[in-house]
């Protein structure tokens, strides 16, 4: 396909734009791999090769195993509500064609907000003394928890912020899938006299299965990359119970200056991301 490019074309159209990818993506990935075999401390120019020590230390540490568990717990806690809520939003909006444009924009808008700022806002919304959420607890005669310092509230708070930011975005994918359901299915349903509940069970839910799988993987990636909300709200606490793999990576790197172990963890993150990306490619191949 396409015309044969002259060398000037290759220079301008390919070499110039690929340079930043080579320098700031490809090369760093290899450097990270190389660093994971050293004991570099970020500051001194000297380091030794420790080969697989970083990997052994990391993979056998309880910190890593805890963070791995907490990452997938957090992913699970955000995946299920995301699927349910974004499906409800998309289905409702599809039935409310006329009034939906403004509402759709409102529901999507959290996605464009900065996570740092909104996490700060949520820390005050959920503040046990002055936050409006504490009033809801008071209303039920309960004392409001100090969200960020006790479990399960700390994990719940981070989950809520994450859901708040991503549910509207996810609903776009369901909206797209619902709009692609063949119209004749509904004609058949009319003839058969299916109830709304039966339509949901036999048409809507099965027809959006590929999107459900795609969103599950995408939300897992989102959970894997969550950092700002944890940093602002809990700093990984109480006692490390909200520390995800990415949070541990930054702690190892920039608080303990153990670049070897940090980059070893980076390689673990890379492998998980590659597996998830592979899953997305497989799903897309089936959808299209």
């Amino acid at each position: 396909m396409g015309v044969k490019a002259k060398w000037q074309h290759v220079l301008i159209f390919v070499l110039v734009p690929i340079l930043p990818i080579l320098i700031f993506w490809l090369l760093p990935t290899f450097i990270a791999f190389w660093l994971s075999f050293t004991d570099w401390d970020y500051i001194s120019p000297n380091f030794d090769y420790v080969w697989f020590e970083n990997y052994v230390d990391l993979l056998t540490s309880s910190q890593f195993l805890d963070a791995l568990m907490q990452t997938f717990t957090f992913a699970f806690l955000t995946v299920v509500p995301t699927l349910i809520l974004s499906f409800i939003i998309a289905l409702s909006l599809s039935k409310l064609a006329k009034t939906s444009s403004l509402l759709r924009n409102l529901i999507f808008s959290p996605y464009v907000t900065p996570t740092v700022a909104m996490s700060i806002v949520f820390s005050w919304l959920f503040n046990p003394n002055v936050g409006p959420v504490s009033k809801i607890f008071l209303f039920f005669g309960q004392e409001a928890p100090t969200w960020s310092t006790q479990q399960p509230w700390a994990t719940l708070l981070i989950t809520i912020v994450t859901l708040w930011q991503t549910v509207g975005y996810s609903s776009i994918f369901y909206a797209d899938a619902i709009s692609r359901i063949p119209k004749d299915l509904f004609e058949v349903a009319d003839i058969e006299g299916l109830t709304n509940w039966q339509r949901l069970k036999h048409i809507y839910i099965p027809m959006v299965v590929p999107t459900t799988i795609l969103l599950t993987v995408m939300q897992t990636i989102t959970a894997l990359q969550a950092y700002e909300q944890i940093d602002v709200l809990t700093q990984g606490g109480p006692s490390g119970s909200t520390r995800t793999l990415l949070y541990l990576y930054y702690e190892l790197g920039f608080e303990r200056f153990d670049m070897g172990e940090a980059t070893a963890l980076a390689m673990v993150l890379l492998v998980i991301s590659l597996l998830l990306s592979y899953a997305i490619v497989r799903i897309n191949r089936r959808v299209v």
Partner: protein
Amino acid sequence: MKTSRGQKVVLFLIVLFIGFISVYPMIWMFFSSFKSGEQILGGGVGLLPDSWHPENYGIVFERAPFAKYFLNSLGTTLVIMLIQLVTSALIAYAIAEFKFKGKFIVTAIIAAMYMVPSDITYIPGYIILSNAGLNDSLVGYVLSNAANLFMIFLFAQGFRNSSHSVIEAARVDGLSEWSILWRVVIPMNKNLVIIGAITSFIANFNSYRWPNILLTSPDNYMIQQGLSIFSTSQGSFVEMFPVTMAASVLTLIPCLLVYSTLSKYFIGTMSASTVKG
């Protein structure tokens, strides 16, 4: 069987409730930014301020160089956006239109790097920029963001689906490849360019982790860094909470403005282009 009026009302109320939850934190933040410290200390949790204190915004600029942070973020975000649009358009055009040696390797590298979480590249990226004397430098920050892999995919897919007869006709007319890209292909893909621009703007204006590693002197801080530091230093005092909210409002305005003016391009095409990426 159609959805009845009653059912529609129920669905509408559900969506209205979710819409309310989506915007409430922002509305609450906005009104809180005008409250007085006394109202907060007095436990006044009401949505509206007892008395309006726009001077909270003045205090933000007094206590921290927020104007500087804001301009740093806005300036680099716009420059990065322009550079990314150009680099993505060029390489996407090459992938869609040219045959050249090493094309397979180029596409393979782009596809592989798309799967690499960017956090992995930050520690080595810092080393590379330090060696070039560009750590803690806005130039280094902009250069490190010169490519946008999502945008390359978005454009390559759009360009490939563009009407080929128009491009052929332009070639017959003797237009250079450079002119075909900017005068024929880009106008045909206006929507994709707008989506690429919005996503780039939002991602860069909101970014925190990479600038927080690279930019270490307060003169170079991006606004999210500035806000984070402001919030930990000042915001620990309850009476400073309205001022912290004022600072947060400032960091939200540009993206909300960009999104609300251009949202009609956004939602429809976003899912279509991402799902089938």
